């Protein structure tokens, strides 16, 4: 097992290299330049030229790539936008995004699995049909639109702040209050981020469950005289959950993408927004580094899903070679 993981990790390296090269080329080929993003009549062209030089933008692209790589590992990679070390910049925002995404994942699985199981065990009932409808709506609804609606709703109905990570118009709070305040601010954005996942995975869970229910061992369980609950929640559920595990790997890119919108709308100081702003301002070092980190996360997510699959399914073994 350890060997397998190690081998998979080694295989990731060329993939990662390819991703960074392609990203680098694409970003640099995109029109625009990190300098002179503002149309400021007081700036003379000489100064723009000097700044290009300061940022190594006058060097050939492959030299710039090597410089980026070198600085990424040896330090000295600074954002074009605010002169901050890129890794520090990302590190500051990473916790916010991680919290948001972890909570979304909890919401996704916390709601999708019970919903899917319920739909499957009450197939074609009114609630199942409503669930189907809700899932289609959930999958197809634009996230930002839903976000606006929910924000407006929350504010009009309760008059409570919902944007950002915490309340501002407050005096000193106890630890308890601070925690609850944080949770409150997490609720809407993580829900918006999770909506698509809940809708999709609950459907997936439903069909997985329905498929498992057809299996011979479910018939055996019934023939044993087990109660329906035992049949569904012990025998069927365990097996139906197996394919869901692999989805965790696929979930990561979706969440990274979704973060951009959610973080912007909810004023959430995370990576998604940073990535978006960096692309707009052509902050090459930041964009590249975020891309690389995302790629690493996706690759690790896939690996984790595979490993997890082996852990939960006793039938899976990985070849030694």
């Amino acid at each position, binding site marked *: 097992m350890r060997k397998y993981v190690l081998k998979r990790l080694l295989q990731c390296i060329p993939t990662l290299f390819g991703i960074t090269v392609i990203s680098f080329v694409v970003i640099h080929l995109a029109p*625009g330049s990190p300098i002179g993003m503002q149309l400021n009549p007081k700036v003379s062209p000489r100064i723009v030229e000097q700044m290009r030089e300061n940022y190594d933008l006058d060097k050939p692209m492959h030299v710039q790539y090597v410089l980026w790589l070198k600085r990424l590992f040896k330090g000295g990679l600074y954002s074009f936008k*605010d002169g901050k070390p890129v890794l520090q910049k990302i590190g500051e925002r990473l916790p916010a995004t991680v919290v948001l995404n972890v909570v979304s994942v909890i919401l996704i699985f916390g709601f999708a699995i019970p919903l899917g199981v319920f739909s499957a065990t009450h197939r074609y009932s009114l609630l199942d049909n409503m669930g189907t409808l809700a899932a289609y709506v959930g999958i197809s609804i634009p996230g930002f639109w839903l976000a606006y609606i929910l924000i407006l709703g929350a504010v009009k109905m309760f008059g409570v*702040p919902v944007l950002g990570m915490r309340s501002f118009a407050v005096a000193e709070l106890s630890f308890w209050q601070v925690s*609850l305040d944080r949770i*409150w601010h997490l609720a809407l954005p993580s829900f918006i981020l999770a909506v698509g996942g809940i809708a999709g995975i609950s459907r997936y869970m439903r069909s997985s469950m329905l498929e498992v229910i057809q299996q011979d061992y479910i018939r055996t369980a019934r023939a044993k005289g087990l109660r329906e609950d035992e049949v569904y929640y012990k025998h069927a559920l365990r097996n139906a959950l197996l394919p869901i595990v692999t989805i965790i790997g696929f979930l990561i890119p979706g969440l990274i993408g979704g973060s951009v919108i959610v973080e912007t*709308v909810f004023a959430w100081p995370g990576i998604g927004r940073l990535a978006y*702003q960096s692309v707009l301002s052509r902050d090459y070092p930041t964009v590249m580094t975020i891309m690389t980190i995302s790629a690493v996360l996706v690759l690790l997510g896939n690996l984790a899903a595979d490993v997890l699959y082996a852990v939960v399914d006793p039938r899976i073994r990985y070849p030694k070679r």
Partner: protein
Amino acid sequence: MKLKLVLLLIPGFIILILVASFFSSRKSLDKNINQLVIGSIGDASYLNPILSQDTASGDVNNLVFNGLLKYDKDLNLVGDLASSWKVTGGKEPVIVFNLRKGVKWHDGVEFTAEDVRFTFERVMDKKTNTVRRSDFELVKEVRILGRYKLRVRYREPFSPGLESWGIGIVPKHLLAGEDINTAAFNRHPVGTGPFRFKEWVSDEKIILVANDDYFEGRPYLDRIIFRIIPETSLSEIELLTGGIDYAGIYAHQYERMKANPDFRVYKRPSLGYTYIGYNLENPLFKDKKVRQALTYALAREEIVDYVLYGHGVAATGPFPNHMWYYNPQVMPYAYSPEKARQLLAEAGWTDSNGDGILDKEGKPFRFILITNSGNDVRRDIAVLAQRQWSKIGVEAIPRLYEWSTFLNSYINPKNFDACILGWSLSVDPDGYSIWHSSQIKDGFNFVSYRNEEVDRLLVLGRREYGKEKRRAIYHRIHEILAEEQPYTFLYVAEAMPVLSKKFIAVEQLDDKKIYRPIKMEKSGLMYDLIKWYVPQESSGISDQWSVR
């Protein structure tokens, strides 16, 4: 089954926590803290006045740092860190600054002339990634005459250079020997201003606290928080819930916010204007009559009504109408399609084939009108212009490009027919880089405007320090540009900041404190920020200024 229970408990638990957090969140709201929360679209980049070029950073830097000079509420230059200054004209003009004594940096070290020269040197350093260097390129030398006195010598007369000394002065003792581009200072600034930097959480907030030793006295507010709300349309939501106290709003939100008893909505003409620029190298726009006709054919009042909900005034030239260099004699082009058609006919454009589009020598009057995407106002202008011009037989095809592409692929290489853009200006009227013919190649004269008289006047205006003489020069420039119409000057929009009514201004008069509402002045709302205050409920003044 255990598992079934778990499946039910997890969502139940999540919902429970949510309800608990809601009530807690509701309870803890407290609107009477002595702080100002300002909503800002973007995060600051450099909290260092040398490096910053975005407004988000500028707003913070203005409170943390002081320049030698500043604009007062009526936009007159007055001393800030300089207690007095004197300009001596001539071929190589000289400015002598006398500095305030006893001003302390936030870390307690005294501010001296060394700091000013250090700031200047850092700006001039080629390795420094600053756009401010342009302002100081004509400075020949900065010489320290004493601990609190220094002299600046220019290579040639350059009156716009004066306001450049409003640049925030940075402390030499903290930055000497550092790489200023990446120094930690840029995230933890130490200035001389009314507020001290306390905390910056990226993309979320910047917290400043009152500087107890401020040379004009401690601000009444305890702290100021800049909060980032990237979706401007949602800052209204945060105003309503008390999440922020101050924010700029869109024109369409004006009426709604005005009706809200908790807020005061202010209006102020912005320092800038929106225009349609014509590529004068394009044969289509070479003729002055054609450009005048295009302006006549645009109902600018209608555009202002439609895109700004009436919150703006039609522009007559390159200057906002509330400034001293604006020429009130210049009359706006009245909307007149007839006049436009007549002018076009004089220029040889007629609809000879009857297809509804004017033509000349077999070529139809058709061009591409570009602007940047992501700006709904400009997009709407493009559509309105297209419609209004179509009435006189001119076909404009709107196109939108992402900002960076727009600049680098179309504007800078002059690869366009006509564009919708806006200029944000400084208080000084100098428009050299926009209108002077020498700025066609690398400057901002991307419409390739050439006029010998304007060239001469622009140079003259830069060399003249006297306000009255400059006024005459810029009035003339205004006249010429209005006549020639290299742009169709569309409008000067109004900025609409919203401020919670809980803030009041405190004036110290002898031994008495006088309270008054916060007023909008020419230079804006924040010029007397250090006098703002949130009365506490127990203080007795809360009745008068109570917040519902």
